């Protein structure tokens, strides 16, 4: 495990040290994979897109601003790739079951089990949203972009971004309420 700061690893990667870039991948892969999974809802596809995000980031390392942190940048790269994928191949139905909860319920303390169940309800509700709304929630809540940054990323007017985000939240709240009342 290399303890060098991200900045040093990026400088070494720019000089062609692929191992240094590998260390950056190790540090950020979980977050990048989860961006892809939240947007695509399919594990294998999310892994493929996460790989593509890193490959693309490597080719663009020269344009990366070393004064900024690496993680938000690579997450944005991943989100953009997923956006392109979603616009090229809109998902028809999200497959959830096998990906969601893998823990053995008998081994889980009750409180943790309940917490996990709730998390999975949210994840399922999120993946059931139309891709456009899913993207709005991803950029605002997980990547913490401002409305203006979202509009820039999505190449949409500010009013559309706000409207998508509010509708997404409303739809998510309704889905979760229905889930809870079942």
């Amino acid at each position: 495990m290399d303890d060098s700061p991200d900045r040093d690893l990026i400088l070494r990667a720019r000089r062609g040290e692929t191992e240094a870039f590998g260390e950056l991948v190790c540090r950020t892969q979980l977050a990048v994979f989860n961006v892809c999974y939240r947007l695509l809802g399919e594990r294998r596809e999310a892994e493929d897109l996460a790989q593509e995000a890193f490959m693309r980031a490597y080719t663009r390392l020269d344009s990366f601003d070393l004064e900024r942190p690496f993680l938000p940048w690579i997450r944005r790269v991943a989100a953009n790739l997923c956006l392109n994928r979603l616009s090229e191949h809109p998902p028809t139905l999200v497959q959830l079951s096998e990906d969601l909860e893998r823990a053995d319920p008998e081994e889980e303390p009750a409180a943790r089990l309940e917490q996990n169940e709730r998390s999975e309800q949210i994840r399922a509700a999120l993946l059931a949203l139309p891709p456009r709304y899913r993207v709005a929630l991803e950029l605002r809540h997980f990547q913490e972009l401002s409305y203006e940054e979202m509009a820039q990323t999505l190449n949409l007017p500010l009013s559309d971004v706000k409207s998508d985000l509010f509708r997404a939240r409303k739809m998510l709240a309704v889905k979760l309420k229905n889930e809870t009342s079942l």
Partner: protein
Amino acid sequence: MKHLSDETLNEYLDAALAAAQQADAQSHLAACPACAMRLSEFQNLFTELEAMPDLALDLNLAPVIVTRLGRPAALPGYLRWLAFFQLATAGLALALGWQLIRAIFPLEMPPQFSALAAGFSGLVAADLNLLSSLPKFSFEIPSPGLDLPATTLTIAIVSVSLLWLAGNGLLLTPRSRRQP
């Protein structure tokens, strides 16, 4: 009392309202339990959403990425065509320049070592003679035996050079700067 809209509540939570509107919303929320309740519902939703744990990754992507980066990147399609065009042009240049090559190197067969040695000693002797006759030195451009006008030949040579530079310049571009 007019209640706050969902949009306003959303923007309030996102701290996206103008300072004056934010202050108005805050004072309204302090006085209106119904709006405060709706705000709290949105807040809970945001908290739950953001607290959602990351899903575990089944494989370590780092070795896969490092291996992929170690492989030569695929050349873009246009570069493959350029390489083919380079080869074709080199062949054409060779065909056109064959007479010139024959004029400069008039040997019919590959030279033997003894012939090369004799040629080399002959060259040395010729150079010594040339040095002794420097004051009277005059240079005459050898006739290549080609029928091509000089401009056409120059254009051909420049084009081939440019093609070579463009092709090899792109081929030698570092992998990190090429599109995968």
